[in-house]
């Protein structure tokens, strides 16, 4: 310390109020600039809320802070000293811990052990008794009664969350990151959690709190930062923030970029869904789709939108309610059945679920309807296959030197087009698009949007699931809003605007219902 220069001292003094200071962090994944020049400073004894839409860069920032990702640029200061966080273990040594929405527990280990597994300096012998006692004490301070001797496997998500929190507490962290910790907790559980967060704050822990629940942010946060599209938009004390201003910051991109699609004429009723449900996932979903109509599904991640798509496509069949297609009642139990009924589902996860990346573009495009490409001997007519692929390559402007190229070598946008080609090739009457523009560049995005318009004009019914609110608003004829497995509302084109939809998605029925900070 005595070797530091005057300049450094001054910097250190300025930063000393901050436990963790991230400066000008940038991170790029392929075509996506996940974080661009982002700065964030966390003060001891402060709850700092981080808001932003899906894809705003919150998760990436968290991963940088916990050593999972290394930033391309920028520096991280811990109590004024620059540090590198090379691994999760290093983050832990620096006193930085994170609680994720999906808890990272060891299902075969019991609760007490899960809480203490990170304590690598706990000696050679497992002090079961001490561990159990300590775990019970921590959980009791959380107001949670849990058999700490039971394995984590059987725990509900809320219980797992409590274990994660206990784990962080047991580590005596300086910085605690909570990534949507309340997403799966009931109101009662949330109240307990907040009592605890306040305790931690009182002990001088810096807390980064990420949540989509606006009312929670105003209950607990001291400072609010908003990210949008990988950029830092604003950081303000909570008293200067209103829900309206925060949401405006979150969604406030230039709407001019996305023109409203001219609606196509609607034909007869294609799909009619009544009280559709899948046990424990979603329930009470009722809507219909006409030919030429685009029905947007808005809501936050985990609201159950994708699950409805999966139910309609027979991957995870519905357990209740009815599905009528062209006025006859159907049960859909497998993707093949769905395909036979003219339904196509373009998955949100093109790398894991959508494409076979090492295989060629043409092979991917023909996969669902391979039987169309067989000759009498049952062999694939590659010429015909390639011809189809070429057709789509032209129609969707897939930029590739050859349709024989492995799909994995394409950029995200072109992969998305391949996936779209694949399902258009099944000649669907109802097309379910799940996050069709996630992670692709602006140009490709516009092309996909144009394609959606064309398809609707051709008389295809489209369900558009997207977390990109402006996209949903621009493309949809009607917007269905989901929240926590329940259908909140269906807005007509005229009544749907970003605020209305966002408020519905966050569980607020009327706009001005939220007042400033509570409690």
């Amino acid at each position, binding site marked *: 310390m005595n070797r530091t220069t005057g300049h450094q001292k001054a910097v250190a003094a300025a930063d000393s109020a901050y436990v963790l200071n991230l400066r000008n962090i940038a991170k790029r994944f392929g075509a996506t600039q996940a974080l661009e020049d982002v700065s964030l400073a966390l003060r001891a004894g402060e709850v700092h809320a981080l808001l932003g839409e899906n894809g705003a860069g919150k998760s990436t920032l968290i991963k940088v802070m916990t050593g*999972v990702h290394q930033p391309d640029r920028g520096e991280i200061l811990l109590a004024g000293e620059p540090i590198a966080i090379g*691994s*999760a*273990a*290093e983050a*832990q040594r620096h006193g930085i811990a994170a609680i994720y929405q999906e808890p*990272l*527990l*060891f*299902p*075969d*280990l019991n609760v007490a*052990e899960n809480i203490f*597994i*990170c304590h*690598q300096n*706990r*000696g*050679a*012998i*497992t002090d*079961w008794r001490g561990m159990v006692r300590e775990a019970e004490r921590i959980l*009791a301070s959380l*107001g*949670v*009664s*849990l*058999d700490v001797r*039971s*394995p984590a*496997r*059987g*725990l*509900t998500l*809320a*219980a797992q969350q*409590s274990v994660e929190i206990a784990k962080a507490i047991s580590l005596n962290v300086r910085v605690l990151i909570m990534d949507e910790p309340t997403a799966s907790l009931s109101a*009662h*559980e949330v*109240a*307990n959690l907040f009592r605890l967060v306040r305790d931690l704050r009182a002990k001088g822990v810096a807390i980064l709190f990420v949540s989509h629940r606006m009312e929670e942010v105003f209950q607990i946060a001291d400072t609010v930062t908003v990210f949008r599209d990988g950029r830092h938009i604003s950081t303000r004390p909570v008293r200067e923030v209103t829900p309206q201003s925060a949401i405006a910051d979150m969604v406030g991109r230039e709407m001019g970029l996305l023109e409203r699609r001219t609606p196509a004429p609607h034909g007869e009723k294609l799909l009619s869904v009544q009280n559709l449900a899948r046990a424990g996932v979603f329930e009470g979903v009722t809507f219909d789709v006409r030919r030429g109509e685009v029905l947007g599904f808005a809501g936050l991640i985990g609201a159950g939108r994708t699950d409805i798509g999966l139910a309609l496509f027979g991957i995870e069949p519905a357990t209740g309610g009815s599905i009528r297609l062209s006025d006859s009642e159907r049960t859909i139990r497998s993707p093949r059945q769905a395909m036979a009924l003219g339904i196509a589902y373009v998955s949100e996860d093109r790398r894991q679920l959508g494409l076979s990346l090492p295989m060629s573009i043409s092979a991917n495009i023909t996969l669902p309807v391979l039987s169309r490409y067989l000759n009498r001997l049952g062999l694939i007519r590659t010429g015909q296959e390639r011809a189809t692929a070429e057709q789509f390559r032209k129609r969707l402007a897939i930029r590739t030197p050859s349709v024989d190229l492995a799909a994995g070598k394409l950029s995200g946008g072109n992969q998305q087009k391949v996936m779209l080609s694949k399902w258009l090739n099944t000649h669907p009457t109802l097309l379910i698009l799940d996050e069709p523009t996630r992670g692709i560049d602006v140009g490709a995005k516009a092309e996909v949007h144009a394609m959606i318009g064309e398809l609707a004009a051709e008389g295809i019914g489209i369900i558009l699931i997207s977390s990109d609110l402006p996209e949903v608003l621009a493309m949809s004829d009607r917007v269905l809003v989901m929240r926590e497995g329940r259908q909140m509302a269906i807005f007509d084109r005229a009544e749907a605007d970003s605020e209305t939809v966002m408020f519905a998605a966050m569980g607020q029925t009327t706009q001005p219902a939220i007042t400033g900070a509570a409690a």
Partner: protein
Amino acid sequence: MRWLQRNIRPEQIRELSLLLLIVVAVLFFGSLIDGYYTSRTFNRIAASVAIITVVAVGQTLVVLTRSIDLSVGSIAGCTAYFAGSMAAAHHDLPPLAVVLIAVALGAVMGAINGVLVAWGRVPSIIVTLGSLAIYRGILIDYSGAKTVTTDSLPAWIVDLPRLTFVTIGNLDIRAMFALAVAIVVLFQIGTSFLNVGRQFYAMGSNPDAAHLIGLPTRRIVFSAFLLSGALSGLAGFMFLARFGNITVEAARGLELQVVAAVVVGGVNIFGGSGTVFGAMLGAIMIGTLEQSLFRLQISEFWRDAILGLLILLAVASDAVILDRLRALWARTDLKLVTRAEAEP
């Protein structure tokens, strides 16, 4: 039911039912075979179970970390031969030294597997299929396909199988069986009460999480293979003592019996759950079947078919029944209960 769920885990139910199955098997064979309930039957089963158990303990550690070690038979064969020829050449070698040589040689062979799996990132099934062949080949080349004969061994090794550790009534507990039980107890305690032992479970239970929270995942996998090798080495020594005559073919095929014991004993093939004690129960189940079927006139040939079925049932019951049990347990009593009412 509530009491049951509070005090017993589904995994323990599985072990208990295996124990029950062993009792049923013993009663069944007892009704078919005259003079089954004798100390001789006990010794017979105990002697054959002892070697498998020791190797199965090591295999359990490996399987817990989501790997498999198919080279244990070759390692046991190599160490049996090497320790045997050392003991034959130097009769004055103290017993402990011979045992240590066997264990050390096994540990080295296990360490080679471990390095290739943990740092070479070669799937364990490939590494150990390869070393299964390589170690055996080395043994045959090194030995020139000669035999270690009973006669050339010092008397203490030859007499070891007869050495009785303790006599309870009619039952002689032989030293080798006692050794196997001691190993099981040691490792059961080690995997239950040592932090390094618990890491095997953590690693296999959720490798991503283990990596994320900074557990030394590679070192854990490596030490599992190291210990599996060392215990196979010890088993090699026991093999030497039991059979005396060690050809280059010694302990060939041991890996199948051991994997079978581990799987039947309820160690999940995908890692993370199962106990050393369960693996011993698996070995006892298999040993009981094997030794008892020997005594039924025709049925000796049914042994493998029954063993295959047993493995399949064990895996299927893990996948289907155990999951149901766990769900049942989770549904009723282990839910999160908040105590806000009780709080002031």
